[in-house]
């Protein structure tokens, strides 16, 4: 299974380049798309999910020319957008039924059996006859997963699924996603580095409509080995340090002092100690490099 994206471009009417000659090759397994807000992640996801047309470029999933033959892709697609609403006054059962019909499950008996299972997996059995519009954020997200699974999708696209979930919910959600993705292609976008680190066997960093880097999380830190330095400083020193150093991230300590992490080829300043690079450092260095 392989998704290949070739020179995908999209410019909005207001001049914003949402996608700028995006090239990607994605195989089976979890693929994380990491990027800050407004990087073009959602545009990319929607374009792959056939609901936004690019100005230019190609997308292939196996033999399917996605842009030409969107119906064929949709047959094997599972999509969960960043936010979604539902029609009011419709229960989880009737909505799942509705999706099952739309996705081609024409037998009533099969639909019922399928929905029984889906509700069990997502633990929504108790809410079966409740209106989905009244669901909490986590429940709605699980409902989203339930509808996604209906057609046993080969390509799964999940846009910022963990936004707005509490830590426990987030963890469980990611677990399910991993299980789902064990024998299909799962693309999920996030701006949280942790999500990717835990789940993905492949990832890309995106900003300003461009793919900045496509790497495996496991070997991503190799490049930075020995180039990340850390120091605890006082608040009023920051401005001074920022002039000369490539600061990647800052975080407060309880005593109001600040941890700063910098990228440097060599130890360039007093008081810095070498630390092991992590995925976050990769993310920030990549963004920094490309914003110049």
């Amino acid at each position, binding site marked *: 299974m392989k998704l290949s994206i070739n020179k995908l471009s999209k410019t*909005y*009417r207001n001049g914003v380049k949402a996608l700028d000659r995006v090239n990607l090759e994605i195989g089976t397994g979890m693929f994380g798309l990491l990027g800050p807000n407004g990087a073009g992640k959602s545009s990319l996801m*929607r374009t792959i*999910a*056939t*609901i*936004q*047309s690019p100005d230019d470029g190609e997308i292939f999933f196996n033999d399917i020319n996605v842009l030409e033959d969107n*119906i*064929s892709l*949709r*047959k094997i*697609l599972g*999509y969960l*957008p960043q*936010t*979604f*609403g*539902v*029609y*009011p*006054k419709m229960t989880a059962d009737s909505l799942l039924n*509705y*999706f099952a*019909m*739309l*996705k*081609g*499950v*024409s*037998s009533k008996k*099969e*639909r019922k*059996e*399928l929905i029984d*299972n889906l509700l069990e*997996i*997502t*633990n*929504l*059995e*108790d*809410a079966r006859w*409740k*209106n989905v519009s*009244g*669901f*909490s954020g*986590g*429940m709605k997200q*699980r409902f*989203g997963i339930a*509808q996604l*699974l209906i*057609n*046993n999708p080969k390509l799964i696209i999940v846009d910022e699924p963990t936004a707005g979930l509490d830590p426990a*919910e987030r963890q469980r959600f990611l*677990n*399910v996603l991993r*299980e789902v993705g064990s024998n299909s292609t799962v693309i999920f976008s996030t701006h949280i580095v942790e999500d990717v680190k835990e789940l993905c066997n492949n990832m890309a960093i995106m900003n300003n409509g461009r793919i900045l880097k496509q790497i495996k999380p496991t070997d991503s830190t190799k490049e930075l080995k020995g180039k990340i330095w850390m120091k605890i400083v006082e608040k009023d020193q920051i401005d001074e340090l920022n002039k000369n150093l490539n600061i990647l991230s800052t975080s407060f300590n309880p005593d109001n002092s600040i941890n700063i992490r910098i990228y440097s080829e060599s130890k360039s300043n007093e008081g810095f100690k070498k630390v092991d690079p992590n995925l976050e450092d990769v993310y920030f260095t990549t963004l920094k490099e490309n914003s110049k």
Partner: protein
Amino acid sequence: MLNNIFSHELSYWFKRPAFYIYVIIFFAIGLFSSGASAGLFDSVSMTVGSSRVVNSPYAIAMLFGGLSSLIIFLYPSIIGVGIYRDYKSEAHFILYSYPFTKLQYLFAKLLSGVFMVHLIILIIALGIGLGFILPGTNPDLLKSFELRPYFDVYIIYILPNLIFTGLLVFGVVTFSRNISAGFIFVLILLILQGFLVGFSEEAENRLFSALIDPFGDLALQYYTQYWTVAEQNELYIPIKGVFIYNRLIWLGVSAILFAAIYRSFSFSQNPISLSFKKKTINKIKTHNFLGIININLPKVNLDFKLSSQLKLLNKLSNIDFLYIVKSLPFVCIVLFGLLINILTLFEVGDILGTPTLPRTWRMLEAGETLTLSINICTFLYAGMLIHRSRIFKFNELIDTTPVKNWILFGAKFLAIIKMQILLLSLVLASGLIFQISQGFYDFELNLYIYELLFLSLIYFIIWAFLSFLVQTLIPNPYLGLFIMIVLLIVIPLTSLAGLEQSIYKYSQGPGYSYSDMNGYGSSVERYFIYKIYWTCLGIVFYILTLLFYYRGVVSSFRERFYLAKQRFDGLHRLTISLFTILFLSIGGYIYYENNILNIRKSSKEREVATVEWEKKYKKYEDYVQPRITSVNVNLDLFPEKRDFKASGIYLMVNKSDKAIDSLFLDHSSRISTFKFNKLNDLVLEDTIYHFDIYHFKDPILPGDTLQLTFTVKNKNNTILRNNSPVLYNGTFINNSVFPSIGYPGGELRDDKTREKYGLPPNNLKPFPSDTTALGNTYISRDSDWIDFEAIVSTSKDQIAISPGYLEREWVEEDRRYFHYKMDSKILNFYAFNSAKYLVKKDKWKNVDLEIYYHEGHDYNLDRMMKGMKYALEYCSTQFSPYQHRQLRIVEFPKILGSYAQSFPNTVPFSEGVGFIADVDDSRKGGNDYPFYITAHEVAHQWFAHQVIGADVLGATVMSESLSEYVGLKIIESVNGKNKMRKFLKKALDNYLTDRTFETKRENALMYNDGQGYIHYQKGSLVFYALSDYLGEKKLNKTISKYVNSVAFQEPPYTTTIELLSYLKEDTPDSLQYILEDMFETITLYDNKAVSASSSKLENGKYKVDFEFNVRKYRNDEKGKINFGDRKIDSISFQGSDMGKPSYSVYLEDYIDIGVFGIDQEEELELYLKKHKISAINNAVSIIVDKEPIEVGIDPYNKLIDTDSGDNRKKVKEINE
């Protein structure tokens, strides 16, 4: 802070394209409606000719007020949406933490909405003002510009309405957070008002309706309902009394509304649900995913076969259908539509207070009130279904499923059709329930189903096609709805701008009509041709909609256009071309048939043709012609093919003292031949106007005869055109299918239009004093009294009837022949009827009475028989003997009209006016109009067929007014005087209302120009009053003297002057003034009971003190008031509480004063006597025997009184 929010709102609106669309639409509507009224389209359409000033304050009030009430459909999305938008964008979380007060926030939101509406109102005013002065408008219809009328309407009408409706919608949308809810309230208000308008048709309900009409229309109407043309042209709208109270009431309600909104609104607002069900709290908490799990889903088949796709389409449409049916706007629109439908069921067919039997066609007719509801639901839900998933942000989930566009969209389309079927079946359900509730069990289910599911449904589907296209192209469903409503209103109106052919106007075309006798006749085929034509275009729209239908995120219209172009592949190309070709070919066929095979004239062309006709041939008007003295015709009717074929012989005599060398023959465009028995040349054959001139070699000398033999038959009927008046069942045609002699008239009537074409002013008909104009009756110009004989044939199962006595009846070659011959002289005025009749027979003295009726229509035959007998009895004893030995009533289908018409010894009588009346004989019941109309028509055998006026002004007094008088007298003899008051009041109200619509001039009764409201309503009131003043016997004796001197006379014919001279002779001097008031002038009373009190006397009797005012005034032909010809003729009175004196024509009048008591819940007349009145303000004391309840001046409304409601007063009891 108020400023900031306010200007923020404004800048929001100024950036919206919707706002500019509204502005353009309303500007155009204002511009064209005022322009059209001022004759802007005179060059392409019919000339607007009228004595009305189109920019009078009254006209501006109607136009400006009317157009601004259209905006209330926009209130939900302009005013209502102010706060709702903050919720929707979830800006309220942040906004409500800002430092402004509730009042500032509410005010700013409200004011900004109101401000935007004002801009549109301003645009309308601008459009109207400019429309009047556009180049091409007719300055004769206009007076000089004034600002005040606009300002008046704005202040007293538009602004208070805007405040009330705006607040209501604002409140509803804010609290329900649902624009549709606001829309529903607008509809409810409109329907409520519609109901009040119906309610106020009864005069006694008018004050109440005027006070509570939320829009104030009825309050304005309360004062202007009887305004004459002069008053409409000159007066400012009355800002007084009831109108002000109404405005205050609704401003008060608005204030309460605002207070309520202010009180209930808080910055932590939760929406108030409009749902009728109690909401249970919907907070559910379930556990999350249980750790790591294995996902083992059952294997299911994904099935994309065509058959299952079609099944899916149907299932999806059911889901959409259920959504519509369960949604609140739908429920409300439908409930209110049904309510109106049911109210209409009671109203349809109500004639003089008597309902028509609830036959199925009547149920279907009433069901047409649901048409608007169905259209609005179609427009609205087409938009909702298209945009629903985006509105609820559900689209990304649906749009990524592998379901094809044509299924998604097809389901929506099918859902709308299902909705339409549901609504149409409500017509069936309510019709059946109504029929059962009325105890009427003659159900015609097949008729219901045929009309609703075939004839009606296709009409709604055609609108659905356009709705979906518009709603798909327009991103906002409410804007789409608005555009569709505008299209629905404007498309039919384009005729005014000269676009007259239906093939150019979406969904337009000829309708269908049903009658029990003739079914749908030939109307259905024509109807379907046009509907198929529009369906073809509709299918093209459907495919276009599919091409532009989009899923997911599309950023610009250009992108959608690009997408559509991409999708425009072979199949789409093929179907679009196929249906475009079909559409064009059917259109071409209709165009060919109507414009090439036949000459189609636009109304403009017809107007020009009328001018040309007059210019060419009017000069022959006074050319002496021989007169027809005998008519002998053979008419063959072919009902199955709707054809006829006729031949005939006219025998003519030169009755003049001059030799006649030329004859003018006016005939129809049908296939005809003409042959005279004297040598002649056809010197002119006009194939456009069908007017021929024959020159005789030897002139026809005085006293000589001439014989014309003619044949005439119709061109073949086609699906689109009826070239013959013959029906499948129920043919009713008159002698106009045969040729006539001489110039027949038919000229433009409006003087201003005539002037434009260089024609001299039209003197209408000559005055009765013009003794040179009395040579013709007003019924025919080419004959006096004739001998008549006819052989009529028809299909074997039908009976054919014409005036005369049946000489012989036989069957030949499967056709039935009837030979009729009249044994006495009749007017040259006859008709032929043919249908499958049943016959009821009876006898009055030696006269054979017959009623030819449609099977099943036997409900009121006895009443009609009774009507014939009573009228024959009354007229023959009071006036003169009946001239025939036979009298027949012949039913004809209501599609030809709802009236009856009297021909010699034969009365064709529409099935719509009597045969199916549901008469209630109890005291509360309405009038027995089958009886009454029969009496009126029978009276015509005297007043028209014995006495016939010359073709001058006032001629109809001798036919219609006198027949109406006889009808009234006969019904009075059956019902008693009490029931008459209702009848007279109705006649008075109709007279006063109808004269306000006069566009030319209203003359006094004796000079009337044939207007129904004068010769029927006023005529009947006048003769009824006269019989009261002179006594019925005495009046009838006078009429009888007159009848006997003029009946069957040869020219010169009688006039109103002669009739009046008889009346004058027999009227005492003291009452001569009545004749002047009633016949010679337009005189109106304004009588009013001021106060009434009573005290019990020692002898047990009661003394009643009564103060009342009597005033009368005159109107000229435009309705301008005067108080007599000379200043000295008028009198005046100024009471202590009056700011201005009131004036009256000089009074020496005798007017009824009545005192009424009560006896077993029935009114008891204690006193009724004519008092001589010579002052405006009067007081009398009257002693009566029993306890008085009510006193009145002219209490029975015998006089023509502009306010008939204030003539009576309840008596106040005073204990001494």
